[in-house]
């Protein structure tokens, strides 16, 4: 569309642009600046310290922990959640009885408040008051029943990823179902005529045509898991003994708890760059697999 009248154009643009620059662009730019300072968070005076914050981030042992946990979350959650949600999407895309009801039930956790979910699950996991130990006990699995899931550095991060998967499987299932409904039934019909069986249809038709939905879902959950904060903060607060620290919890801790917002901001900048790199490469790689109908 051609811009006929610059004034009118600016008039319409101004309110949104003003708010955007005040509340998004402004803080982003000032954040970039503060990442290079020793800002203490209260006064506006901050000393320029160059790359010191970034150097310290890389030598901080917690940075390695955060990186490792981010990797675990991204890989475990994406692999498991997406396998399950594609399976469920295909299953619930059939014309079965009660299918609408089942979709609603599976989607339901996604609309619950994350903090509430976190608290409920920390009780469920608890070896003393929890449901999970009782469940394992009733199955006769006493070794599993005696595990303090959130209290052990080797199990805590996986226990948390289970909750994330539980919460968001329904959400990605919905996106996959939208993708499935976009696949024309003609293709399946002609495949049937050619004698393709269900397995072949899934791998040769459904999956390749679902790649756009996979891309969207993967990018969404990679971003979500890389900037993960709420689940971890509510369930373990980054503990025990820092074993579940991720960038979100560390940034929060430095920015607000220990009066080192400059350092926290530097970490946030690194995280943003990391997310951007990973997202772009995912879109590149998956984009190549996309096929036209």
């Amino acid at each position, binding site marked *: 569309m051609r811009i006929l009248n610059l004034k009118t154009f600016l008039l319409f643009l101004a309110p949104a642009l003003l708010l955007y620059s005040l509340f998004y662009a402004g803080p982003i730019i000032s954040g970039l600046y503060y990442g290079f300072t020793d800002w203490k968070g209260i006064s506006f005076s901050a000393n320029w310290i160059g790359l010191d914050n970034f150097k310290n981030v890389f030598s901080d042992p917690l940075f390695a922990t955060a990186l490792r946990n981010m990797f675990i979350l991204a890989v475990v959650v994406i692999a498991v959640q997406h396998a399950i949600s594609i399976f469920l999407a295909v299953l619930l895309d059939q014309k079965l009885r009660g299918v609408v009801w089942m979709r609603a039930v599976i989607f339901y956790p996604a609309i619950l408040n994350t903090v509430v979910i976190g608290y409920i699950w*920390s009780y469920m996991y608890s*070896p*003393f008051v929890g449901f999970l130990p009782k469940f394992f006990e009733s199955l006769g699995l006493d070794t599993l029943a005696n595990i303090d899931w959130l*209290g*052990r550095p080797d199990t805590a991060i996986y226990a948390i990823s289970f909750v994330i998967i539980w919460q968001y499987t329904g959400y990605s299932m919905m996106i996959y179902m939208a993708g499935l409904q976009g696949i024309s039934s003609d293709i399946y019909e002609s495949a049937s005529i050619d004698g393709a069986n269900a397995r072949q249809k899934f791998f040769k038709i459904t999956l390749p045509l679902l790649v756009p939905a996979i891309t969207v879902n993967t990018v969404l959950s990679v971003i979500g898991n890389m900037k993960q904060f709420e689940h971890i903060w509510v369930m*373990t607060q980054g503990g025990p003994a*820092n074993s579940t620290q991720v960038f979100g919890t560390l940034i929060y801790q430095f920015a607000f708890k220990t009066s080192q917002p400059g350092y926290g901001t530097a970490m946030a900048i690194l995280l943003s760059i990391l997310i951007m790199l990973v997202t772009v490469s995912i879109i590149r790689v998956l984009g190549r697999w996309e096929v036209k109908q």
Partner: protein
Amino acid sequence: MKHSRLSALLLLLLSVSLIVSACGGGNKNTDSPATGSSDAAPSKAAADKETVTLKISSWNPISQKVIEKFEEQYPYITVEPDQIADQYREVIRTRIISKADMDIVWMFPNQMREYVDQGVLMDMSGEAWKGNYLESAVQLGTVEGKTYGVPYNYYAVVIFYNRGVFNDLGLNVPTTWEELLDVSEKIKASGLAPFVTGGKDAWATQFMSSGNFGAYQNKDPLVFEKLASGEKKWTDPEFADFFGPLSELVDKGYFLENSVGLGNAQVVQVFKEGKAAMYPMGSWALDEFPADFKEFEVGAFPIPLNKAGEPLVVNLISDNIFTGISWSKHPEEVKLFMDFIAQPDTAKLWSEDTKSAVTVVGGTSPTYHSIAEELTKSIESNVSTIFPSLTPSMEPAYFPMLQQILLKQKPDLAKLMEEMQKAQEKDYK
């Protein structure tokens, strides 16, 4: 061509908005409070005063009865309590950065220096009410000789215990470390876990080590200032046994198994269910045992980290420092309120209403809880010190160490002290 003019305009708009937003926060508030010359007959002068709303921010509730009595005495003032139960520091910090309209604010002791340096707090050194408080309480609100506020409630760090278990096993309340170990061994032998402490809320695990602070302060009242300035170091021999007691209890298996993942609320529940005999915590947890709690009779004693022959030092915690904000629009009324709560009668009302001890001398109600009298007696019969806050970088380093010990990872305790020192050095000026 048109395009470049457009983008130049947009850029201009953006930069203007940035400058505007930067200036907004940078404005210095010029109507800073007038000090002194306000004591003369406040209620008479009040008649022709405009109505004033006094905002008080706190993390625990302010006694409603005290507020009512204050408003009765000064009808032109309305108190607006503003309780921020969660993430208090962060919320207050945000408000201070944006110079929000605030009058009276509770501060944690380790926030004092920072905010004093930034000119956030009102100097109240000249106020007469200082003499009404415990000396150690006034000290906590004083930075470099000037008083900016005073902490109001105090709590003791204690071990809550199940009296039923102690009676059944014929155990006495321990007053030395050796006695505590002996009691724990007997409880363990009876098949019950002697202690429970959580690991998720890391602050709740600290009392068996930060219980040492009292002894350190008793030997040298300035010990924490010296640590903060580098005159003393955490690696000095006098602190070598800092993690010792906790580590020994863990090594002997005195903690309830599988409790590291528990939050403090869950720990209380586990203790109430009788799954462990002792629970180290601040006396604020008395609230968990109201009159209708009948499972067992609960008791509390100061944590005996002292070896036989050493004095038992009771750690008091007092952290809700009432401070005035320097840009408050009602500095006179802030001072009226501060003076009002310093009166023993007001303090007693507060103590009874909030069920806690108060730093105003003679201001604690003896009946705020069924075990209040016994507890107050055991506190007063021993030496007591007010537990300091550590500098900001300490807790994020210190608490995970406690978790390591509780997880039976058997960390090298000397190395932990080195890391404590490293964290301390981050806060050097």
